[in-house]
């Protein structure tokens, strides 16, 4: 017999007993009222009406209680198991008069179900916590990092630890930007992507090439491709996954090329340092001596001019290599343009003077402060004036002019009145190693200067242009952006540092925050 049937029988029995008792009381009272109290018929009827009303109420009360008790016990059983109902005690089944077996069996079922649910969630949790021990994650030969929503590393496999050069347990709990000093080839950095993903997407994926892992003191630089997956709604807070694909060997071939150039440059610079040092000593001594052949002084001046020219050429080589390898990094700062221009012109005045050339420099007072990388723009001016000197021919004047354009940019022009540039040459003018073949025999140079200058000006957000007529001379001009405008852009992008791309390794901007 099943427990429900038992409950039904019990209920029927109780109800029948109650109704019979009620009727007995009613009949008994009726008889007693007639025989003993000699009540009138109206008194009898009203008395029995009252009694039966009381009886009906008693039946309803006792009956509903009988039915509700088991339901209440079940409810209590469920509540006592729910995780937020810790204060509800389990039901006292033994005291149940009706449906005890049914309730006992159902409570048993509920307990069983709940323990299964608990076990399943426990297994899930262990699986999450055991991610560290997870065979695949741990043994995959690719460095793998998992970040929580605060960009804290919550998992790093052994390949990652080895690659980064920090033990896995040391990585856990650290902010990813503190541990991974990543530099990206352009402005699309990882932190920028993540920031964007967090505000815009529930999930996102991205990949980067040629990411550089910062040079730690003892650790060689690493170059790798990076893939990242973002999932905002992951319940286990596995929000961001990073996988690194090492390409150090492949990518560092370019680096080696750069270090070969760096070495060559070093070897060229040492004798240059000495030459410039000795020339200075001689010029000093010649200047102090009254009876020296004036030719000697002028020869020494020419030697100095040549040494200076060679120094800037060496810098050109270096910077062209950097441009080609995306390693020229510009730090744009607020600078006074007249100051930079004047000091660059001064540096070249000796080279002009030894060739009998005069440089006229006119700077409009309306020129605002510029946002430039001082050394780089000095090189541009240097290259343009150097060219103007070289290609001046018999002309003895170079005009430099700087003013504010209608578009609000700072334009600087370098004008010579020399040999000019044939129109068929113009289009190749800014190509590396390109030089006008007709001039090749007469004028020295490498064809690096304009290529480099254009790259530098482009990276500043300006343009470099040329206007020329064969036989009448050339005008080279370039524009620069006012600092105020750059600062405004920077503010909008939320950048912390004005580091320009196109030619540079851009540091992951988070790293600049202090």
């Amino acid at each position, binding site marked *: 017999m099943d427990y429900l049937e038992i409950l039904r029988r019990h209920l029927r029995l109780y109800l029948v007993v109650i109704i019979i008792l009620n009727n007995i009381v009613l009949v008994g009272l009726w008889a007693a009222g007639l025989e003993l109290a000699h009540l009138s018929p109206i008194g009898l009827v009203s008395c029995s009406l009252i009694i039966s009303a009381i009886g009906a109420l008693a039946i309803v009360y006792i009956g509903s209680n009988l039915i509700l008790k088991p339901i209440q016990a079940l409810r209590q059983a469920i509540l006592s198991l729910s995780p937020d109902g810790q204060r509800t005690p389990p039901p006292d089944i033994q005291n149940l008069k009706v449906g005890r077996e049914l309730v006992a069996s159902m409570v048993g079922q509920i307990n069983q179900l709940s323990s299964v649910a608990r076990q399943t969630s426990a297994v899930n949790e262990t699986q999450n916590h055991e991610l560290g021990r997870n065979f695949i994650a741990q043994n995959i030969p690719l460095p793998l990092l998992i970040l929580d929503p605060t960009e804290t590393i919550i998992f790093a496999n052994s390949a990652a630890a080895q690659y980064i050069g920090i033990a896995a347990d040391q990585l856990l709990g650290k902010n990813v930007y503190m541990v991974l000093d990543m530099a990206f080839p352009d402005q699309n950095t990882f932190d920028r992507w993540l920031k964007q993903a967090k505000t815009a997407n529930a999930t996102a994926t991205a990949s980067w090439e040629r990411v550089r892992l910062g040079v730690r*003191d003892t650790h060689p630089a690493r170059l790798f491709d990076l893939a990242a997956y973002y999932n905002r709604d992951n319940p286990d807070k596995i929000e961001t996954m990073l996988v690194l694909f090492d390409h150090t060997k492949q990518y560092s071939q370019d680096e080696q090329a750069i270090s070969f150039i760096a070495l060559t440059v*070093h070897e060229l*610079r*040492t004798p240059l340092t000495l030459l*410039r040092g000795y020339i*200075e000593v001689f010029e000093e001594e010649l200047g102090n001596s009254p009876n020296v052949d004036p030719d000697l002084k002028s020869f020494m001046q020419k030697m100095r001019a040549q040494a200076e020219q060679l*120094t800037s050429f060496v810098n050109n080589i270096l910077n062209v290599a950097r441009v080609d390898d995306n390693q020229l*990094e510009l730090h744009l700062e607020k600078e006074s343009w007249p100051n930079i221009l004047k000091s660059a012109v001064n540096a070249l005045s000796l080279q002009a003077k030894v060739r009998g050339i005069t440089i006229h420099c006119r700077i409009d007072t309306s020129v605002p402060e510029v946002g430039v990388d001082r050394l780089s723009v000095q090189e541009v001016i240097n290259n343009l004036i150097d060219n103007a000197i070289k290609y001046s021919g018999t002309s003895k004047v170079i005009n430099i002019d700087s003013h504010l354009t209608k578009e609000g940019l700072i334009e600087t022009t370098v004008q010579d009145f020399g040999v000019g540039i044939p129109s068929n040459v113009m289009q190749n003018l800014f190509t590396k190693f390109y030089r006008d073949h007709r001039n090749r025999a007469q004028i020295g140079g490498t064809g690096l200067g304009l290529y480099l200058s254009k790259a530098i000006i482009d990276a500043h957000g300006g343009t470099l242009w040329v206007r020329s007529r064969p036989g009448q001379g050339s005008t080279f001009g370039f524009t620069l952006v006012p600092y105020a405008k750059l600062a405004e852009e920077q503010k909008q992008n939320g950048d912390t540092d004005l580091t320009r791309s196109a030619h*540079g390794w851009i540091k992951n901007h988070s790293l600049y925050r202090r």
Partner: protein
Amino acid sequence: MDTNTNTQTGRTVLCIEDEHFISELYTRALTKEGYKVTNVADGIKGLAEAETNQYDIILLDLMLPNLTGVEILRKLRDPARQPAIRSKIVITTNLEQRDDVRADIEKQADGYLVKAELTPHELVEFLNKVK
């Protein structure tokens, strides 16, 4: 150029430089200005000298035999060092570094100069301003 002669009387300079001709030129220019110059051409000896005697300024080349300038700089600027080395350290090198490496070095030093870019006199002018 000698109008300022002896304005720097007594300031001591340790020049850690393995290119003898360069240290010779620098010594000449610095001595004229009143500096007292000590020359060392080796990394390990240079570090030992910097640790033993207190110099006002240390001129530090990066490419050195036995111990590189970067290592010397790191050791001299080690925050755990007791007592701290008070000398101003000016890097003088012709070696071109990647910008981030250079920035790292510059953070620890009081100056970073490319030797080919300046004459001995210009070096002296720079050091006059290093206080």
